[in-house]
């Protein structure tokens, strides 16, 4: 029976019967449609709560039609995939998707409230919170679950994310930038994973361990989504990594500029330190703004270079995880696998993710990349919102709390972030202190 299933999965039919492949096709459809001018930026609620913008100005009557069109396009895209992967589910999906979409729009509205968004409470977090609140207070009707397609939304979003991983920008600060962003990051990632297995004994939570390690060492939420999906981590594990990251990012964003000033660290080194350690890009910029313009320049470019690394890290994690065979009892073992087996088990969205990155880095002219980025990022962001609504609807609080019961995930984050802070500060002094290497300008 297994052989039959295996054979079927390896055949050409998997190209249109697997959700994994559909993430690639849907991502390609969005990218091509945007590039050809058929698709523009999705219409979603705007920012409010600042400069006199109130709730009503975030969602004026004029954009209602645009929001409905965004919903219709999303419905159409994902319905095609559902119709090929499981026709029986299609009618339930068509019925339930508007509900998921509606929750997503509310999450977008709440996530665009500027005073709270500044502290990380964005659309993705609100999507998770709303989903959790609904599923843990009122029972979600069974048919709604057929539209809660976390994997499809998240993987399609990740293929679109590939379009903003621009390898041609990695040398923006020369070797000095790479020294801080690309040298320390893998060291911290490997150290954290090793620590989780050796000392915290997280053998039954490998997915959670690598997701927290990536979120801490690379770029927070996006890294948690990309590496967690590549490692086939559970939905609750990705949610937990995102939540822990968010809490500590708020503290680091405010505390690190104060520490830099009190310790008399110069703005070049300080900027490099902020860029290499704070998880969210927006928080990096907000923290560096408290120092100086020079700190903003160094910090944000370091963060951009570090963001690029997530493409490589997600790819490597996907390959490594193919070799780890998960057993039913929660344990796992490493096994030797042939190249054919690697191809069969490789999460296919990774191919779309890497291909999109290579095309946008080295094939398309910079002007084209600049013009299509906003619409592609708009859809990517909204698909992540739909994914986190789905995660919330399928997660119960008990499951989430049980993950942190032993304290290992929080300990892993604290130990890893401490190592990250120390190593990045040393690297920032070496590469941007002006004593060992000449400064770029």
């Amino acid at each position, binding site marked *: 029976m297994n052989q039959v299933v295996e054979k079927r999965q390896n055949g050409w039919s998997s190209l249109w019967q697997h959700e994994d492949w559909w993430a690639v096709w849907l991502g390609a459809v969005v990218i091509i449609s945007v590039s050809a001018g058929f698709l523009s930026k999705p219409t979603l609620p705007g920012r409010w709560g600042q400069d006199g913008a109130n709730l009503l100005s975030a969602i004026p009557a004029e954009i209602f039609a645009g929001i409905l069109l965004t919903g219709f396009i999303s419905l159409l895209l994902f319905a095609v995939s559902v119709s090929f992967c499981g026709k029986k589910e299609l009618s339930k999906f068509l019925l339930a998707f508007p509900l998921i979409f509606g929750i997503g729009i509310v999450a977008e509205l709440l*996530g665009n409230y500027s005073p709270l968004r500044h502290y990380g409470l964005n659309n993705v977090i609100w999507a998770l919170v709303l989903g959790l609140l609904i599923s843990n207070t009122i029972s979600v009707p069974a048919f709604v679950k057929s539209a809660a397609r976390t994997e499809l939304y998240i993987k399609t979003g990740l293929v679109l994310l590939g379009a903003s991983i621009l390898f041609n920008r990695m040398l923006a600060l020369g070797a000095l930038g790479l020294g801080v962003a690309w040298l320390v990051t893998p060291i911290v990632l490997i150290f954290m994973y090793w620590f989780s297995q050796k000392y915290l004994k997280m053998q039954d939570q490998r997915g959670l361990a690598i997701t927290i390690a990536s979120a801490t060492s690379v770029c*927070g939420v996006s890294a948690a989504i990309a590496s967690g999906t590549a490692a086939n981590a559970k939905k609750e594990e990705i949610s937990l990594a995102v939540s822990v990251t968010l*809490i500590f990012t708020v503290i680091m964003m405010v505390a690190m500029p104060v520490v830099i000033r009190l310790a008399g660290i110069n703005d070049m080194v300080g900027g490099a330190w902020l860029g290499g350690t704070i998880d*969210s890009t*927006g928080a990096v910029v*907000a923290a560096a703004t408290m120092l100086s313009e020079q700190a*903003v320049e160094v910090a944000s470019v370091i963060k951009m270079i570090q963001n690029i690394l997530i493409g490589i890290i997600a790819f490597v994690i996907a390959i490594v995880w193919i070799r780890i065979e998960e057993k039913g009892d929660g344990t796992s073992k490493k096994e030797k696998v042939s190249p054919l087996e690697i191809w069969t088990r490789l999460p296919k969205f990774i191919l779309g993710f890497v291909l999109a990155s290579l095309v946008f880095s080295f094939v398309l002219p910079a002007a084209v990349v600049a013009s299509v980025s906003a619409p592609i990022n708009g859809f990517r962001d909204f698909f992540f919102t739909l994914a986190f609504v789905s995660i919330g609807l399928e997660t119960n609080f008990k499951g989430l709390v049980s993950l942190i*019961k032993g304290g290992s995930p929080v300990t892993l984050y604290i130990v890893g972030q401490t190592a990250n802070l120390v190593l990045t500060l040393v690297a920032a002094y070496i590469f941007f202190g002006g004593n060992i290497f000449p400064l770029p300008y």
Partner: protein
Amino acid sequence: MQNLANRRNKYVAAMSWVALTAAIIIAMLIIAFDKGQSAGSISGAGDIWWMDVPEVEQSYRKVTAKDNLLKQN
């Protein structure tokens, strides 16, 4: 030996709960008193990817322009 390991595990679990609770309280105080100066800021912790943050593109252009100027000289 086993007892020692169990006690260490309980200690780690207790300490991590204390750390997490402290972090949540500090984060809530920061938000409540707006210590991160949200007013007037274009970007913040909610902007999770570099393309969502206009300052990153501006900084990249400035750094590239400075680099080109240095190369010309």
